[in-house]
């Protein structure tokens, strides 16, 4: 797989697979294409040469079932400021699972938002907003997680909890691909290194 943006090669000759039970961190300097790679894998970005396979078949052959198995979290948390955490979480899950409000509240509480369920998200801090999105991980039944900079704005305690969650997820047979700002030391983590500012010129 290779990708070129605005006339600049981001990466070339990339070939890898993600297996169940793995935890992979995409690494590289700023501008090396980490976010673009994650967006390509999720199917949000398609300006690339090459193939993305899901269970051995081209992903777009059965896009619906691929998407049903994918949980993607981008730079922007996907939380509407005008809605409450409960409404946001309910919406994010609505197209995927049938879940009761009780389960939603419980997930929000575990994410550290107990008491904030009915507060409009515009009154929450950046970290709390991020936690609304993270609460979704607690309910997720998708085997593939693609997480771009999930640790942004999360406090130390939250980081530890999230790291534990990711490790457990891999142990349960889920696959996690992520990028992070800090250097997490997670047991069994694979590294996928992207080149300095985009490989070689042609």
């Amino acid at each position: 797989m290779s990708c070129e943006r605005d006339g600049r090669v981001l990466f070339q000759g990339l070939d890898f697979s993600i297996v169940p039970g793995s935890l992979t961190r995409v690494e590289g300097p700023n501008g090396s294409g980490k976010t673009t790679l994650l967006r390509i894998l999720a199917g949000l970005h398609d300006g690339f040469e090459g193939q993305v396979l899901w269970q051995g078949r081209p992903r777009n052959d059965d896009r619906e079932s691929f998407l049903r198995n994918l949980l993607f979290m981008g730079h922007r948390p996907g939380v509407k400021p005008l809605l409450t955490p409960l409404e946001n979480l309910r919406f994010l899950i609505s197209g995927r699972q049938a879940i009761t409000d009780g389960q939603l509240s419980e997930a929000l509480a575990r994410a550290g938002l107990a008491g904030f369920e009915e507060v409009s998200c515009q009154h929450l801090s950046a970290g709390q907003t991020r936690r609304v999105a993270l609460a979704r991980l607690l309910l997720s039944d998708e085997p593939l997680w693609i997480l771009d900079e999930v640790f942004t704005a999360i406090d130390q305690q939250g980081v530890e909890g999230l790291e534990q969650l990711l490790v457990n997820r891999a142990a349960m047979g889920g696959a996690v691909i992520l990028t992070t700002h800090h250097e997490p030391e997670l047991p069994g983590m694979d590294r996928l290194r992207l080149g300095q500012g985009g490989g070689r010129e042609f």
Partner: protein
Amino acid sequence: MNSEARPVIRPMVRAVPILPAMWAVLKRDLQVNFRQLQDTLNPLLFFVMVVSLFPLGVSPEVSFLQVAGAGILWVAALLSTLLSLDHLYRHDFDDGTLEQLALQPQPLYWLVLAKTVAHWLVTGLPLVLLAPILGVMVHLDGNSIAVLCLTLLVGTPVLSFIGSIGAALTLGLRSGGVLLSLLIIPLYIPVLIFGTGTVAAAAEGAPVGGYLALMGAFLVLAITLAPFASAAALRISLSNN
């Protein structure tokens, strides 16, 4: 080992229901709109103000307003729809919910359809409801007002659906608002022509059923085709992000 006891996550092959997802999108968009009521009302106020410009700028004579009234209301409705379109996807784009929408397992077509219906409910429908009052102010007779409202009722959703293509294409571009109008206005012309033409025909006492049916055909065409184009345009805009 205790890993045997743990639940194991496996890939799913399961059909996903479409209607509940559409309903969730519709409900969410209405909720968001009601929580920023001022933003939702602004295009309506704009509509009223533009209509009042014509008597002031051209002529308050009854004979002029009677002839031009339907056209004035239609042009004002068209402009106010154009203004509101810029917000259709922009907030979702900025806060990241749009990419979540694009990654829902349901085809994007249906979700875009739901979003556009929500847009019409908060911008188009109120225009239709306001039209009788403004119709009286521009001296249209009762029959003309009734026909005008019918054409707006059938025509404004077409405006929303076609406009959603433009909104999706110009998403994330610096020159969004004006560019959107440039792209969309030519496509609005047939609806405008039939909207005002039908009222003119009614004023002359001609039967208007056929014209209204034709506008209905525009609507059906817009509902079936426009979400395809909008969904494709959204994917392009997200890919460019």
